[in-house]
């Protein structure tokens, strides 16, 4: 059964590469088949997983870093994986027609396949590192797909916004996961859940939890990070249906659910999830009523759905886990279907303004059927599974204790808004008074119709026989949320109860909102002034300030002034040496030896004289001569201290240097001094003083430590027996450090070649 885990991922990865090289005509059918095959493979695993046994596998790992790289397919993973591959197959089928002559179909198929593979990896990962890598891959895929129409500025902007928000959240998530894994002592998610006491007792437990929540909130568009999702509707509609409603945006919900067994009794976890979830649901409902663009309406209802899911995870367990899973399933069905319908309407009529469309059922009867099926589920009417979900959600809220009243009231408003919007998307769009459209619409081909119809009928079936879905899919998934097995029997009919009353009241309120939809929209749109205080504006402000700030920092660091670079370099190096010496107690003042000074004392005096003369020289020739004096004094220093080889090399180099410099100077202007300003002179002199002082103090510190002769003695002793050479310096160079010397010869040869090349180019340039 390991094939159910590894094969879908392997298949997806291979298909991604294959689709790229495929002619556009074949890419979509191929991708459809790959997704369908993966779906069937996963379906195979349902009986085993429903029996309570997770299927595990491993395909990579870095044991030295404690990364297990395991994969695990349990109820929750399987539910997600089935949604990813099943809806994926329908979306590919749909996209083949939607993008019918688009030459970019191969690229589209490849990116969406990559996304599908990454999603599968993310939901199957039993290792936070694996999970994180796949998580980020989905953000990348989303970036490419939102910006698919990259010639449009709005698409590019939306793509960048989606990437920055989810990617920024990803950074927070990474930090949180690292903290959690460190506290648990393992990167395996099963291990983290097993070590929940250690995770909760760690010093940074709360910080880790909040960081993980931020990452999940960014991905799942929770308030205040929800603003990127409606803008992501710049993507082609199949992408919106797939990534931005059914799958990717639920990844944050998935991870919250996955880690719920660790934190479920934590007050902060419950509070943050419940209230931010409710706030998100309300914000989404409010903004959805304001919009008229079909896709944006759907995007905001998706925000509502995601908020509801997060809230359900946060509500103390009992029924809420089951409610969350049922709602997840329901939402994926109807939202993907409605997005696909919106795509069809856009495709056929050439417009997607809900307020200007109507009566399409006459010309598009089958599309209307799909829309109505999905909308009834969205409105939560029996016998659709949406009704089961809504009842469960209400029940979970009623059981949640102190805050039940507030949660139910909020949920009531949200659900009523959903009923109204479901009405707009089905009855108004398809049955109200017909209006003129730019194109003459008709039902599209079967490929585009399959998706909405299959998803709509699934919603009906799941509502009709909820017990089947309950035992095979919902209960195993809810078990993963709680960390213990769950047995809730789902039913369509609960009898006459307060729940039913609540449901009826919701629908009544929803119908009222539907009837007032146009006027309500006008009122809400007049409140757009409030957007000034919204997070979208804050994002613009931050981004608007970031680019100039980056330019300023770059200008400061990469200023382009050679002298300032060198000043920085010398100042940092010498201050670093001085500060280290001071703090490590390395400054040692020498004791001056008494007695007659060594006659060799004239050498350092010559060195000083030459260097000072070079600085004070008024002409370049004088400076060159002074520097020659330093060179020759150095040679003498070598000569009188037992280093004749060095002395001769120094003499030779010094002579050559003067020759080359003279040859260069023939071409350069010798006259014309370039004096520095008095201020520059002070700065440079101070830096030079620091550098000189650091050098002297460093050398004195070296001299104050006892000399360790081991290496020198070893070379002296081994020179004759090991290398048969009596000149120890030569033996070191050509025997003991022969490879180093070879490297140095290479450097010198390269320098010679480079000099030659530059000289040749100069010759060419001056001739031309």
């Amino acid at each position, binding site marked *: 059964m390991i094939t159910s885990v590894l094969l879908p991922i392997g298949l997806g990865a291979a298909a991604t590469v294959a689709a790229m090289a495929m002619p556009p005509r074949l890419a979509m059918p191929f991708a459809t088949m790959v997704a369908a095959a993966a779906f069937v493979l996963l379906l195979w695993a349902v009986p085993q997983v429903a029996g309570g046994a997770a299927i595990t596998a491993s395909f990579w790992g870095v044991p030295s870093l404690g990364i297990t790289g395991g994969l695990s397919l349990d109820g929750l993973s399987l539910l997600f994986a089935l949604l990813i591959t099943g809806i994926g197959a329908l979306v590919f089928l749909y996209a083949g027609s939607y993008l019918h002559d688009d030459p970019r179909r191969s690229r589209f198929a490849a990116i969406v396949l990559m996304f599908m593979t990454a999603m599968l990896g993310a939901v199957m990962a039993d290792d936070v590192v694996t999970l994180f890598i796949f998580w980020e891959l989905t953000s990348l895929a989303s970036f490419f797909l939102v910006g698919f129409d990259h010639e449009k500025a709005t698409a590019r902007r939306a793509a960048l916004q989606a990437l920055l928000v989810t990617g920024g959240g990803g950074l927070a998530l990474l930090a949180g996961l690292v903290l959690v894994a460190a506290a648990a002592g393992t990167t395996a998610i099963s291990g983290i859940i097993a070590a929940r006491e250690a995770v909760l007792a760690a010093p940074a437990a709360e910080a880790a939890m909040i960081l993980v929540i931020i990452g999940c909130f960014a991905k799942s568009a929770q308030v205040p990070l929800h603003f990127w999702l409606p803008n992501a509707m710049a993507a082609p509609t199949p992408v919106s249906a797939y990534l931005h409603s059914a799958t990717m945006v639920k990844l944050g919900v998935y991870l919250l659910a996955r880690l719920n067994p660790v934190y479920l009794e934590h007050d902060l976890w419950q509070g943050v999830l419940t209230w931010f979830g409710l706030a998100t649901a309300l914000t989404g409902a409010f903004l959805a009523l304001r919009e008229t663009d079909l896709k944006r309406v759907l995007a905001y209802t998706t925000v509502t759905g995601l908020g509801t899911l997060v809230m359900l995870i946060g509500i103390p367990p009992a029924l809420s886990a089951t409610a969350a899973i049922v709602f997840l399933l329901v939402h994926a069905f109807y939202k993907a279907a409605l997005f696909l319908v919106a795509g069809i309407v856009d495709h056929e009529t050439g417009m997607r303004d809900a307020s200007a469309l109507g009566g399409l059922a006459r010309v598009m009867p089958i599309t209307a059927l799909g829309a109505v099926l999905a909308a009834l589920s969205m409105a939560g009417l029996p016998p659709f599974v949406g009704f089961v979900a809504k009842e469960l959600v209400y029940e979970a809220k009623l059981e949640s204790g102190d805050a039940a009243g507030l949660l139910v009231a909020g949920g009531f408003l949200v659900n009523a808004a959903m009923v109204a919007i479901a009405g707009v998307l089905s009855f108004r769009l398809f049955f109200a008074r017909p209006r003129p459209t730019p194109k003459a619409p008709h039902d599209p081909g079967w490929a585009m119709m399959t998706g909405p119809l299959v998803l709509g009928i699934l919603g009906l079936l799941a509502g009709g026989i909820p017990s089947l879905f309950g035992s095979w899919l919902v209960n195993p998934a809810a078990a993963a949320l709680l960390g213990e097995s769950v047995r809730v029997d789902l039913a369509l009919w609960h009898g006459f109860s307060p729940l039913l009353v609540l449901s009826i009241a919701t629908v009544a309120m929803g119908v009222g909102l539907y009837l007032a939809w146009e006027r309500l929209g006008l009122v809400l749109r007049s409140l757009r002034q409030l957007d000034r205080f919204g997070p979208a504006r804050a994002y613009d402000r931050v981004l608007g300030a970031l680019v100039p700030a980056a330019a300023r920092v770059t200008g400061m660091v990469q200023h*382009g002034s050679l002298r300032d670079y060198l000043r920085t370099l*010398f100042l940092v190096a010498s201050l670093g040496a001085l500060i280290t010496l001071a703090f490590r107690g390395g400054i040692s003042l020498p004791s001056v030896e008494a007695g007659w000074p060594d006659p060799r004392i004239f050498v350092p005096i010559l060195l000083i004289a030459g*260097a000072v003369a070079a600085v004070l020289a008024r002409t370049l020739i004088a400076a060159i001569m002074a520097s020659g004096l330093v060179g020759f004094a150095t040679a003498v220093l070598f000569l009188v201290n037992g280093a004749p080889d*060095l002395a001769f090399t120094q003499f030779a180099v010094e002579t050559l240097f003067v020759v080359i410099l003279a040859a260069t100077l023939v071409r350069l202007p010798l006259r014309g001094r370039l004096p520095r300003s008095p201020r520059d002179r002070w700065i440079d002199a101070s830096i030079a003083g620091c*550098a000189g002082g650091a050098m002297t103090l460093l050398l004195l510190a070296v001299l104050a430590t006892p000399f360790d002769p081991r290496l020198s003695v070893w070379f*002296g002793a081994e020179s004759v027996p090991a290398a048969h050479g009596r000149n120890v310096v030569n033996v070191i160079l050509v025997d003991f450090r022969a490879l180093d010397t070879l490297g140095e010869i290479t450097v*010198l040869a390269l320098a010679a070649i480079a000099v030659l090349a530059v000289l040749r180019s100069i010759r060419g340039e001056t001739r031309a």
Partner: protein
Amino acid sequence: MEIAVALATGIVTGCSVYLVLSRHLIRVAIGFVLFSTAANIAIFLSGRLGPMAPPVVEAGAGALAADAANPLPQALVLTAIVIGFGLVAFTLVLLLKGFIRLGTVDADDLRETDRPDNAPAAVRPAEPRREAA
């Protein structure tokens, strides 16, 4: 003696840094030469001064005499001198090329070529601009 050399090395270093920070590029090059000389002396000095006898094993003897100079820093400095020479030679032809191409030996003038508005259009970074929503 060693202390005097340490002091001299510091002064040569300071003078070389002062020269390296000049505006005239030939002075900068001279500063580099002096700086590498100072570095060589520092290595040599770290191996201690004193003995006049070169580190050569006497004919017939198996090992280096105790009063010979320290061979290790000599080996290091020998290559350093040559590499330093290579560096200076390359710096000088670059200066020459720079002068022929740009017509200046002033370090402060070189900065102009680094400004974006002086770069060829192909490498100029795009202007940051905000697009309407």
